[in-house]
């Protein structure tokens, strides 16, 4: 029964193509593969030349905030443009180029607007992978969140914190802004 079903189905799959056509298609695929590779190589060369400054990287950061708006940033960051990253401006920084491990301590991510706190994170550049986790104090009430178009964010309660998590791929300029208020 089963065998019969299979035999019925497979013959009408395209085994009727003449050998010459198969050859043509195979050659076509081969040519496109090679041209695709060449094109990709050229593209990469342009990036390597540093013309546009669009070198891509990866960013995976956990950001821990205390009640005063001080932030500890830890994680993985691969970029050759570290000095151009806004979120590191004015921070105390330890960065290992080999492993990509980063530790940064900063109070520059947050600002006070009355009783509200605004967290602004901005990492310019093209990021192949971007995963940001902001651990706000548990008492925080998240009012608004905005992010780069390519980032999707979620707001959940986790590990005794309010967790705002943003993930995305091929992100051009990773930006996350969070307005929150500490209760009590």
């Amino acid at each position: 029964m089963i065998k019969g079903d299979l035999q019925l189905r497979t013959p009408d799959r395209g085994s009727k193509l003449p050998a010459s056509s198969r050859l043509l298609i195979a050659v076509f695929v081969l040519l496109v593969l090679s041209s695709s590779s060449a094109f990709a190589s050229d593209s990469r060369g342009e990036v390597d030349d540093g013309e546009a400054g669009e070198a891509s990287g990866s960013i995976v950061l956990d950001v821990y905030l205390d009640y005063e708006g001080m932030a500890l940033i830890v994680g993985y960051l691969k970029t050759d443009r570290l000095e151009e990253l806004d979120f590191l401006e004015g921070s105390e920084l330890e960065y290992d180029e080999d492993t990509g491990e980063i530790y940064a301590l900063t109070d520059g991510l947050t600002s006070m607007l009355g009783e509200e706190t605004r967290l602004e994170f901005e990492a310019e550049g093209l990021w192949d992978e971007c995963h940001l986790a902001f651990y706000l104090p548990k008492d925080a009430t998240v009012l608004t969140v905005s992010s780069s178009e390519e980032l999707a964010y979620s707001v959940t309660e986790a590990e005794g914190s309010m967790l705002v998590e943003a993930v995305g791929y091929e992100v051009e300029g990773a930006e996350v802004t969070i307005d929150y208020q500490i209760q009590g």
Partner: protein
Amino acid sequence: MNPWIRTLFLGFMTLMLVSFADAGHPLPLEPIYHEEILVRGPGLVAAQIVDMDHTGGGPPVLISIVISEVGLALGQADELIPVRLQVERVRGLDPSRVRMLLGENRTLGEIKAEIEGAEEGYIHRGNLRFGHAHYLLENLSLSSEELNTTLEADLMEPVWGWCAIPDAPESGLELAGRIFVQTSLANGSEIGAGSLVIFSGPYAGSYALVLASSVGPGLGIAACPDWMDGLAGSELFGACWIGDWSGSLGLGSLGFGSLGSGCPGPCRKVTVAETIRFSPESAGMPPFFCPGCWMSGCPFEPEFDDVILRDLGCGGLRPDLGVHGWYGGDVFDMMVDEPNLLSPLSERFWI
């Protein structure tokens, strides 16, 4: 859909995948990994996973990326959906403890020393982009055996949806699906295959997955000295999808059936590991022009226990079925119609 059009379309998508992979970038590895890689070859991910317990010494980093893959999912209606998968290895930190350290006005060096001196273990976390949808990975299980690694995880999404501020944030995440991926690695070529099921929403359904590392030499060409090097993986993927229309231009016709002999037949059954180990270099010529297999039938039949290729749609379900040309659609039909014929991998999702 006309099988020829579908074949060409899938072939085109293969090229797209090659392009995606080519846009990959080298990820730095923790120092401990370098020796491992030298020993095991340039495959990064497997080496990382094999070594993920850091038993070999060296300073562990807080966060590292252990899997970064791009690929395609093939649905039951033959739709192809781009996929990106990332898994991170993260040292668990207690946010309240970090806040306490921040409150003590310590220097960064002191905080770092405290964190590194703590005894928190490592966890894996990850996320998946599936078409336009995002999922977080939970209950993530990674295991490694020789050159094969297996990932299993729940797909989660926020109860209130993405990009929404919940009224009750404690409601957290809800189960949205399940993913299973097996990755094999040899000679720098890496290919992952598996299954994915999504329970609801616009992507609801079951899918087969083909993934290539976006890190260095995967299916792509990024870290290969020239484009021929990259063919091993791309052919593997491409042949899986186009293997049907020639009956001879499947994996067998691409030289996989002549492993170790420089191409001339006779073709024989090869295992997944052998298949993936094959490279144009080892054959000494482009597999497309491999004499002895080109247009000569050379049916490739993966062993019955070759889970990866069978789930890719490349494998004959059973030798006695006499199927020498395989097509993704065929396999999907079978997956739906005859789940008992499926590999253990597929049975997890299609029963």
